[in-house]
């Protein structure tokens, strides 16, 4: 089993966000997480991505129990194992798009030459080569999202987590971005997990879960 979520609980103060959540995902499967606003779907995604610690339960990714890892191990895990794609792009405004795409490599201490080649190749495939020297505010929303995807997969992560990646895009860009995510995750043999509001998008995934009040309802 590639991903195992066992009876996970998470609270912020008195608010219980995840309440005994459990599910599994096999390698090669992709997953769509659906749910209303405040249902806990983003918290679940961040938990899977080792950004949030859980209060109770276990999360195992590729056999590694990330709920028991120390901060340094979690950081290393995020850098080497996870790719994040966020709805609001989160490209850092203080650096150009190429530096943004190379950030995971810089943080992880990788040799930049190889990663840069890969980034340039991906930028070529996704049609954003012309954006690399520009700053994020100088490129369109669709281009920003594609650059965001390049950054997320620049280190070939085994798990690609996307928080409403098309939530900010028009229908044409939504189809493009989803297709790109699918193709690239298959190419690098990565498991894709997407949080979405869009039922049509969710239906195209191997597996789909719906969360309400911190529990899986379907």
């Amino acid at each position: 089993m590639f991903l195992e979520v066992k009876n996970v609980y998470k609270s912020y103060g008195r608010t219980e966000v995840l309440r005994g959540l459990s599910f599994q995902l096999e390698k090669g499967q992709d997953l769509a997480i659906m749910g209303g606003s405040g249902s806990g779907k983003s918290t679940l995604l961040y938990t899977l991505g080792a950004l949030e610690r859980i209060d109770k339960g276990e999360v195992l990714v590729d056999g590694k129990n990330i709920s028991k890892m120390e901060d340094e191990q979690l950081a290393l895990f995020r850098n080497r194992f996870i790719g994040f794609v966020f709805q609001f792009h989160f490209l850092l405004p203080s650096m150009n798009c190429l530096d943004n795409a190379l950030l995971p490599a810089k943080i992880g201490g990788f040799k930049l030459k190889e990663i840069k080649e890969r980034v340039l190749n991906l930028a070529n495939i996704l049609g954003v080569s012309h954006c690399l020297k520009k700053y994020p505010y100088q490129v369109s929303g669709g281009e920003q999202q594609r650059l965001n995807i390049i950054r997320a997969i620049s280190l070939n992560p085994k798990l690609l987590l996307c928080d409403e990646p098309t939530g900010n895009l028009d229908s044409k860009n939504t189809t493009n971005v989803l297709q790109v995510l699918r193709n690239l995750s298959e190419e690098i043999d990565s498991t894709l997990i997407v949080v979405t509001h869009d039922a049509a998008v969710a239906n195209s995934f191997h597996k789909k879960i719906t969360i309400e009040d911190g529990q899986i309802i379907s």
Partner: protein
Amino acid sequence: MSKLPLGSVFKIILKKKTSLRFLTGTIASFSFSIAVILSTIGLMDGYVVTLKEALAKSNGDIKFTSPESFFLDEGHLFKSSQDIEAYTTLLQLESFALINEQSKGVLLKGIDQEKFKRVTGINTEKLGETGVLLGSQLQKHFDLKVGEQITLAVASGKAKNQGSVLLRSFTIKGIVDHGIFEKDLRFIYANKSTVSNLLDYKDGTSNLGLIKLKPEVSIESALKQFAAKYGEDYGFEAFWSEFEVLLDAVEVEKVSISLILQLIVIVAILNVVAFIIFIYEIKAQDFFMLRALGLSIKSFQNFWFVLLFLIWSISCLISIGLVEIFTYAILKLPFLQIPGDIYELNELKTILDVFDYMYVFGVSLVWIFLIGFFTMRRFKKQSLISGLRQEFS
């Protein structure tokens, strides 16, 4: 683990002009508060050092007197002592200087010029029988010049004329600057033999002695040794003894004031904390991203501590500059110069040694890291996602 260059993080933090301005203000207030403490300590140290130097200039290392007031120096006192480099004896008495119908109480000091120079370092012009040297403030007071005449009135020492006044004119041969206001205003030097003759005292009669010790001998140990060896005939005092209480008071005050002034540092450090919180809030999204991409809390804290260290180092460097400006100002700007009649000294400047810098810089470093540590701890406890959500709520 993180190999993210510090420059990249600083670029993220300081991208906005507001952040840069805030940082500039933070460094300015921090360096100013450090400079205030340094200047205060420097002034007090400057006072102690200058006063001691000035006292040594007129007293040598050790002063000695006889319990019987007068004693006879025939040139072979303390012959058996190995610690003494040179000594001299003086015959001094209260007198009045009379100039153009004005008078001023002075202390006429009869000196053996050669020996006096060896002990105190004061280089005196050849005085001869009728020459005197004037303290610099006394010369200013009467507006006298070298070569002019001054009349001194002294009480007669002869038994048959006891109580009567002797008037004697002298030629001013030079000006002496002791560095101590009171001494410069009161001291007049003449040849010891001239003063002895004036009072009709036997040659060698003295009422004060000054000793210069060999460089390797400490004053404290010499005082103990002399007291044990010559204690019956003479009383010995360190050169600073006449201002000892004042010097002790300044030392106590220095510690108290530097502790009180830590409040200024704390206020400045609150600015640093405000800066951290400001940056943390406006850059929450960027920091979240860095964490998501693999930056550990530890690496993240390290960046903050490097930033705090840089703020501290830059502030320390600027504060050194501010202290130099302050020192220049108190020496050169008339309205900032100290009144010598109150502070005893003609001139006062800040003197800071390595320990002073280490003390002030060290304490401010402890403060900045202590408060920085607690601020970091607060951020560490806060959930990254909840912080981010708060930011966008």
